[in-house]
């Protein structure tokens, strides 16, 4: 595997001459999702699993900026949404394999005013309890230590889910190897209610019959960005070079020189780890040099549709769901597509993305960067951006059919994961072949990478500018094992690290700059 990775690195030689960086995920990036938060995809990840290179992990994050203390109902998944992870394995930009997830909510204790409650071994009515509640009657259930059964009495609200694989038009339910229901992991309410949250959350990792692992629940939002500065017309902090990082700041993946606006927030996640043999068109593990090794992946959310025609009248509008949003590469819709077309883009299929070529081939953002920083940018049409939207080297092996222009995350499944000490936030642009845009890991700094890609880094080293927001790492450490994201932040203890506050890097070190 190491040899294969070296091959890919060589393929990237021209590309690596300059260190690139990019932009951030997509929270509320289109009118339709600004109106429909539960269906809003914040991020989509696809990478070869760190601890098992024979599997790929997909992570679909939805429902942005969940304030951890925001009870009493917290953050259930929406029972009416169809969450889907779609994989193209034949360069067609059409889904050859899909994993579909749907949730069911159960109210276990309809008289209780909060979704999750518990303390210690439980609290009973005291001696002075007024009638008709007799002293000793259980009032507060024991702390929540399990997703079901003993230790789960405090889950006034719980969610189970089903997952299906769709392949060649055939839908196959994927069931728990123990046959037990799959429970979504609730958010971390706080230490009294959930005294050992990591242990509770870990119970939500299930192994399905065919070796697939799955997890669904509320987790720390793994994305990091100086969101306020970015959307204040790229008004980046002076300490972050005003958007042009110093060499030292750019080289240090572990220190933030600006505030992570997503710090202290949670998000809902569906993570699924799938054997590569179930994903490639050959049904085998392939070397990175194989033209069949690269897959395309994207996530979607869909809702039941109201149709013009009523059943049982024949309908010209087929399908019981309509797509609300999709995401492959981060920030395409957020930063490239014009406001008047964002919903159209969200509801369209990747295979039809050539209709958005005018946005892709002369991105307004590039011209804004040109105007603000005076930097030279490539002359349109920006064909240098094509590797992000077609099957092309350096991600796909030479000779791989390019397929149509389509926004998907391309992942060469033959590239081995990079060990943590060698992992680079700038991914492929920094010589880390297992990072974005070869798939996307939770730690990849797609904000900086995308900024630099739009500025022209893919067109050659003359367009290599150290653009960035100054946020180089997440506010809490990621996990090195499935589901890789950090567990949900505590509702009682959470901390947003805002401008001017001490501990800009994971709560430690220098204060976050204000200006």
């Amino acid at each position, binding site marked *: 595997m190491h040899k294969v990775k070296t091959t890919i690195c060589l393929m990237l030689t021209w590309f690596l001459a300059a260190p690139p960086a990019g932009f951030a995920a997509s929270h509320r990036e289109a009118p339709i999702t600004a109106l429909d938060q539960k269906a809003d995809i914040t991020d989509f990840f696809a990478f070869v699993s760190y601890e098992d290179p024979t599997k790929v992990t997909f992570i679909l994050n939805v429902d942005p900026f969940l304030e951890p203390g925001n009870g009493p109902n917290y953050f259930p998944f929406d029972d009416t949404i169809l969450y889907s992870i779609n994989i193209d394995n034949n360069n067609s930009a059409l889904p050859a394999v899909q994993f579909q997830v749907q949730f069911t909510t159960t109210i276990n204790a309809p008289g209780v005013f909060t979704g999750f409650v518990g303390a210690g071994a439980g609290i009973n009515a005291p001696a002075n309890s007024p009638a008709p509640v007799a002293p000793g009657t259980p009032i507060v259930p024991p702390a929540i230590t399990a997703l079901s059964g003993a230790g789960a009495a405090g889950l006034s609200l719980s969610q189970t889910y089903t997952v299906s694989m769709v392949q060649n038009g055939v839908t196959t339910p994927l069931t728990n190897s123990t046959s037990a229901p799959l429970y979504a992991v609730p958010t971390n309410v706080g230490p009294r209610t959930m005294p050992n949250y990591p242990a509770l959350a870990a119970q939500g990792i299930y192994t399905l019959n065919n070796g697939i692992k799955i997890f669904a629940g509320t987790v720390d939002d793994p994305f990091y960005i100086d969101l306020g500065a970015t959307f204040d017309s790229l*008004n980046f902090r002076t300490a972050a070079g005003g958007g042009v990082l110093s060499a030292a700041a750019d080289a240090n993946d572990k220190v933030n020189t600006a505030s992570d606006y997503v710090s202290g927030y949670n998000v809902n996640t569906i993570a699924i780890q799938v054997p590569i043999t179930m994903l490639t068109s050959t049904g085998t593990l392939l070397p990175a040099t194989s033209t069949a090794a690269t897959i395309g992946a994207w996530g979607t959310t869909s809702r039941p549709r109201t149709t013009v025609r009523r059943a049982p009248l024949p309908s010209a509008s087929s399908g019981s769901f309509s797509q609300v949003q999709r995401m492959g590469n981060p920030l395409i819709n957020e930063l490239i597509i014009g406001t008047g077309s*964002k919903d159209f883009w969200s509801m369209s299929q990747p295979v039809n993305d050539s209709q958005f070529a005018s946005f892709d081939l002369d991105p307004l953002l590039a011209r*804004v960067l040109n*105007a603000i920083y*005076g930097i030279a940018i490539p002359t349109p049409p920006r064909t240098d951006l094509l590797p992000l939207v077609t099957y092309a080297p350096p991600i796909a092996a030479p000779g791989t059919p390019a397929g149509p222009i389509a926004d998907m995350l391309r992942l060469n499944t033959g590239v081995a994961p990079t060990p943590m000490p060698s992992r680079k936030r700038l991914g492929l642009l920094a010589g880390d072949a297992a990072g974005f845009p070869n798939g996307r890991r939770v730690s990849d700094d797609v904000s900086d990478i995308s900024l630099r890609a739009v500025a022209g880094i893919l067109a050659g080293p003359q367009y290599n500018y150290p653009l960035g927001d100054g946020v180089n790492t997440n506010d809490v450490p990621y996990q090195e094992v499935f589901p890789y994201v950090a567990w949900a932040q505590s509702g009682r203890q959470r901390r947003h690290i805002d401008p001017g506050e001490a501990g800009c890097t994971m709560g430690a070190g220098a204060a976050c700059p204000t200006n």
Partner: protein
Amino acid sequence: MPDELSVPPSCALAMLSLLCAAQNPDPRAAQGYIEKAYVLVQHARDAARPALYTEASAALDRALELSPANYEALKLRVAVLLGLHDFSEALRQAKELNKKVPDDIAVWGYLVDANLSLGDYDEAEKDAQWILDLRRGSMLGFAKAAALREAFGDPEGAIEFYNEALLRMSPAEKSERSRLMTRNGRLQLAAGNAAKAKEFLEGALSINPESQEALAGLAALAASQGNYAEAVRLSRKRVELSPGAGNTYDLAVMLERSGQAAEAETEYRAFETMARAETEKTFNSNRELVFYYADHRKDAAQALAIAAKEAENRHDSATLDAWAWALYRSGKLAEAKTQMDRALAPGVRDNGYLCHAQQIAAAMHDDGTAERFGNACSDSRAVAK
């Protein structure tokens, strides 16, 4: 990389200048004309007066001179074209706008209207479905889908969606609220629910006392109950408010049914003069003219010439029904059946069309088909249009 990378003091201004590069030299000057056109279009719809659309069009021309790419003006121009029944041009311009701004549901609504009027029901359905998908639960989506359900012969479904649209509509939207209530009243009347029909139609008129459509609906309701005096009174009021060819024709029909032959003849003659004058225009009363010549003047050749010409541009059920009827009156039964089948193909269950289909089938000695349409003819006199 440049030696110095500086952030200009006003990034927002830089972005704005870029975004506005292709836009208006003076958008504020154009705004007055756009607002004037908007008011005229609203009034034109309520009063069914094409002259007001023409005025609106002139205001928009001026707005677009001042601000050639003004999106609101371009949108309103499509509304004007729809009002003037220039559906082909409205469709062309709406498609252009839709390509520029695919997330604007108002433009999708224009596409529905144009395709529906031209008889391209498949496209109209796709457009309406897109609105329902794009803005779930939107008033516009339900209203457009309701119109399609009518066209597809699902009046109960149409009523359901009109009600959904009404629930979502601001009380301040008097004109559109009145229009949807009138549609619901018409459907209730066709379904034989006179009390419900009255409730909706009177409600529509109380919201918008100038509503031509509500007055026409109430006249049809009165006629269905044999109260021709009231039907004539309402029809006269309608003509007083808006003395157009179509309204005059409806008055003549009511007078004829009420037994006032001489007065009816006077109105028929007035109608003929007005309708002949506008027959080459997009906003015309050619459909009424077809029935006038076919049934009243017994001049099938004239009726057929007008119907065939109209059908060159539109293939909606109403146009095809008129063509089929002119063919029937001309003795061209096979062709009449062909066009009638086309008219009914989307599924429409309008008693007027079904009555024509029944008579065509009977003339062709197709008793099975004639039988299938039951009492359509007796019902159609009550709820015609």
